[in-house]
């Protein structure tokens, strides 16, 4: 695991700032008073248990859901995102957990969906070249860009979805569980990609259940619990702290093992 200095000051200005974001679905409050900042050139990991509101928050930022209350500030200006295209226009690109690809269209059509070159006379050659360039940048292994998405594996679909999000040169890219369906090599590749994106000065919001992945690339780890902020951690926070913040319980399997290990050490020291 790459070692990262603690308390690293984010470079660049605040790109995105959320204050008091709430979202209700009927009687259910999926999000309550969420605050979140994303700086340019920073990877923010969003972690939390199932139902913590991570995906809802991503959908709010992607313009899929509108927040019930709260303000979103993007590059210093308060913004409302009434639709996914509004978010895209601002420069917030999203890779959704369910990928949101059209299975009946081929890879090129999916990457350029809604952003086709030359709308009145589609430039298929230029689009195919750009698609291959994006896929090669990701070191992707896609057999053919002219096959419908239905013929691709889960990992290949993930790669297509990520390639699509980069097409528009976004300011912020959000990845919802980007490595969940990927093999070892592809996971490493996606994490490399996240680093590359950060080096370009983009803000990255990454949702993951995999603490290894989170620690490998995140600059800050934001924990959500039951739709509320539950602490911000640095990547070298202990597993115990993180799991405690995520589950809200200080007594769990991780903490008990940690306790046993420390007790064992103490005994060993006593014995010496």
């Amino acid at each position, binding site marked *: 695991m790459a070692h990262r200095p603690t308390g690293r000051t984010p470079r660049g200005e605040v790109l995105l700032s959320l204050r008091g974001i709430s979202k209700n679905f009927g009687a259910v409050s999926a999000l309550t008073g969420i605050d979140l900042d994303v700086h340019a050139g920073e990877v923010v990991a969003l972690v939390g248990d199932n139902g913590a509101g991570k995906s809802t928050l991503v959908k709010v930022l992607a313009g899929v859901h509108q927040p019930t209350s709260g303000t979103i500030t993007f590059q210093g200006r308060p913004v409302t995102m009434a639709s996914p295209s509004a978010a895209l226009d601002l420069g917030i690109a999203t890779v959704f957990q369910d990928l949101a*690809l059209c299975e*009946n269209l081929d890879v090129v059509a999916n990457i350029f969906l*809604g952003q*086709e070159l030359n709308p009145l006379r589609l430039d298929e*050659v230029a689009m195919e070249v750009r698609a291959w360039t994006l896929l090669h940048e990701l070191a992707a292994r896609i*057999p053919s860009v002219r096959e419908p998405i*239905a013929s691709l594996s889960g990992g290949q679909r993930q790669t297509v979805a990520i390639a699509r999000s980069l097409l528009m040169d976004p300011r912020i890219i959000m990845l919802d569980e980007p490595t969940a369906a990927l093999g070892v090599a592809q996971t490493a590749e996606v994490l490399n990609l996240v680093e590359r994106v950060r080096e370009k000065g983009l803000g990255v919001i990454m949702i993951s259940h995999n603490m290894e992945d989170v620690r490998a690339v995140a600059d800050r780890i934001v924990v959500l619990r039951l739709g509320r902020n539950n602490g911000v951690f640095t990547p070298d926070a202990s597993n115990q702290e993180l799991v405690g913040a995520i589950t809200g319980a200080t007594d769990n399997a991780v903490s008990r093992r940690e306790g046993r290990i420390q007790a064992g050490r103490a005994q060993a020291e006593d014995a010496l």
Partner: protein
Amino acid sequence: MTEPKIQLDRGDSRVTHATGLGGTIRAFFNRVKAGDLGSLPVVVGLAIIWSVFTALNPIFLSPNNLVNLLFDCSTVGIIALGIVCVLMLGEIDLSVGSMSGVGSAMVGVLWVGQGVPLPVAIGVALGLGALIGAAYATLRNRLGMPSFVSTLSGLLALLGLQLYMLGSTGSINLPYGSGFVNFGQLLMMPAWLSYALALVPGVVMVASGLRTNARRRAANLSAGSSGGLLLKAAITTAVLVAVVAYLNLGRGLPWMFGLFVGLVVVMDYALTRTQWGRSMKAVGGNAEAARRAGINVRRIYISAFMLCSMFAALGGVMSSARLASASQQAGTGDVNLNAIAAAVIGGTSLFGGRGSAWAALLGIIVIQSIANGLTLLNLSSSLRYMITGGVLAIAVIVDSLARQSRQSHGRA
């Protein structure tokens, strides 16, 4: 042939690529086996239908009967073209028959009854179609009303409007000898023009194919073989010239059919080569994905329903010219189902996301061949309805089976 580096799209050794003529033909058979049938079932079905009818009554294949067939195809075919648009989204418009009846009544009432100039009357009919289509789409977008229900109520409401417009007389005769009625019944292209038009597809195929191949090579992408391209163009041209020559043995190629094919070509271009067409397929395949990609899904629905109702109105206008009358019977009976059946038989999926403008052309030729052949055999319309219904059922079964096969072969 020297290759400086591996082509962009040939970097993966796991994929087999069709090379040369033999490869192209093998790829075709593999596609069919995987359930990507394209227009194959239609062509096979058409061959069977034509052989049977010719065996039963040789007049069926006479040039003049085929010319009549083309006239009949044009009116319902234009309606089917609109149906392709809504089916592409996985929606349906059940009111196209009534809408075409209103279109024909509009021409009768405004042009013959009120003395309004014909182009204005046609314009009003199309405008009303656009309005009705926008209403269906709005009901769907804003209220979530399934198009099945909204257009079913539209079917009855528009039929009422048609009856109201025609009033007590029940039918309005359009003047024989007017250019409009001639267009619907008599007007043929000059032979030289029909031959020239038969050459156009082949020429366009070769020109655009060679240009695309050159651009692909310049961009370091693999390009198709020029031999295969020339062969395809040659076959197409030969078939078209033979058809035109055969029709010219009779009355010739109707202008009205020319209009229909022209509309098919325009729609095919719009559906396959423009951003709008791409968005249509995307919405039909996965509306939520399309929305998240920034496509204005509501606008796509509006455009499809408007086009469908406008094509229906235009089809009605053309059928009034064909029949030289605007009557209460226009657009009733089997018009509705024939239009929908044509689109489905031609290969447009009822499940959305798949289809082409050519489906309307191929499908309507099948449907009208059956109607025409049965009429030649002096069979009553009762039997005709039953047989057409059976053919529609078979077409939907083929569609469903092909869809299952596509899913298991990963072809969506």
